[in-house]
């Protein structure tokens, strides 16, 4: 095979991206579990581990830049590297969102009871996992499937948001000012949590969209 060293580096980049994706999914799912169970020790591990994710992100970003600068990739090779470059950003952002979830675990009053963190959170995590698998396995159908799953997640998140707002309005109508202050606090964290989980789903779709374009030059999911 011609340009063996270059081919090896492309294969290594792809493997490294998949490993990074698996690391991020592990951290995110642990953050969901920590938030659901109020596990402060695990939450602390997630927060402290964000530095490792950021460092690895920058290393892999550097690998992409180096491949472009030194090898002048074209066609499928260029799509692989540019897709990987974009996917890296999505994975790093999922790492940040996992940190957000973990940080909210510290509040003993917990997230709003209307938010089923485990159910919503793990659904988003499975989407990320599926998107990374699609990237690893060259699977366009799996990419499209992630987008379908996101519609369902968005719907669940929207319904949860609506429940939270309704309960807040009900509390306000009841006129309990002390209870209202507490409710505003948990409501805010509840809304932020739902938004973060929804954003994780969006990043999963971004990964799937970049993968689909990388594989088939199909920009269907990019818009």
């Amino acid at each position, binding site marked *: 095979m*011609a*340009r*063996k*060293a270059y081919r090896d580096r492309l294969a290594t980049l792809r493997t490294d991206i998949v490993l990074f994706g698996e690391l991020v999914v592990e951290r995110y799912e642990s953050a969901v579990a920590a938030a659901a169970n109020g596990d402060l020790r695990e939450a602390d591990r997630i927060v402290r581990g964000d530095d490792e994710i950021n460092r690895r992100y920058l290393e892999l970003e550097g690998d992409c830049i*180096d491949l472009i*600068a030194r*090898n002048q990739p074209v066609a499928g090779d260029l799509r692989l590297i540019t897709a990987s470059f974009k996917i890296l950003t999505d994975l790093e952002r999922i790492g940040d969102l996992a940190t957000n979830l973990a940080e909210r675990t510290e509040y003993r009053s917990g997230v709003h009871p209307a938010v089923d963190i485990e159910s919503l959170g793990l659904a988003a995590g499975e989407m990320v996992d599926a998107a990374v698998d699609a990237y690893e396995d060259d699977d366009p159908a799996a990419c499209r499937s992630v987008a379908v799953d996101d519609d369902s997640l968005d719907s669940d998140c929207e319904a949860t948001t609506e429940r939270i707002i309704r309960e807040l309005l009900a509390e306000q109508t009841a006129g309990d000012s002390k209870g209202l202050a507490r409710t505003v606090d948990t409501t805010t964290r509840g809304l932020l949590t739902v938004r973060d989980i929804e954003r994780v789903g969006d990043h999963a779709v971004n990964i799937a969209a970049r993968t689909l374009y990388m594989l088939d030059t199909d920009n269907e999911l990019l818009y």
Partner: protein
Amino acid sequence: MSQNESTIDSESESLITTDVQPDTSAEPVSSATTIVETEQLDVYYGDDQALDDVSIAIPENQVTALIGPSGCGKSTFLRCLNRMNDLIDIARIDGTVTLRGTDIYDDAVDPVALRRKIGMVFQKPNPFPKSIYDNVAYGLKVQGKKVTDERVEEALRGAALWDEVKDQLDQSGLELSGGQQQRLCIARAIAPDPEIILMDEPTSALDPVAASKIEDLIDELVEDYTVIIVTHNMQQAARISDQTAVFLTGGELVEFDDTTTIFENPADDRVEDYITGKFG
């Protein structure tokens, strides 16, 4: 193989016949051991200065690329490293060139012994009008090495050519394709087991596929040899080298650093202009 074995008088690896004190000053860009180093090297052809105060420390077992516009002195620099400029009457050299700390221009150094350690491959493939086997055997003979079938095979394997020619070793080297001829020349260069291989635009006369094979070969050669390559192809330098030295008009070495730095974040604006095509 049916070829005869022959022996040559000297197997000595020594460059010199008298003691020369090594000079070990260096500012390497790599943590690897410096194998060849120049200090304040000036080269003149008559009244024309081709190199101007070039100091560089080249690491071993890595690929160092020399790039720059035509006439900037990069080929002159390459030829200084195995004293090929000795063959040019009007060439004059100031400064020092050391191989593992030994001044190669010391009177005690034997240029033939030096070239045994520093082989060279040129721009245009130049096999001799002899058989494939004899082309490699010549590389051994001229450097005073014993010719054996094993050594010829080893050199051809080292040049990634063996599998393509093993059944036609009696065929003329001139009947091979351009890319194969260049790899035959590389086999001839590595047959005496040198430490350094100098390459002066080794792929510029080849088509992209043949050039790609040579680039892959260079990647393998650095496991055993130090490769110093002159190339006009900046993309090639970016692809295959560990370090890049940029020469500009007037024979000045403007920047020498690891290749990633040169192509992603060069320190000198003139290098930035050159590699982005703004120069001139």
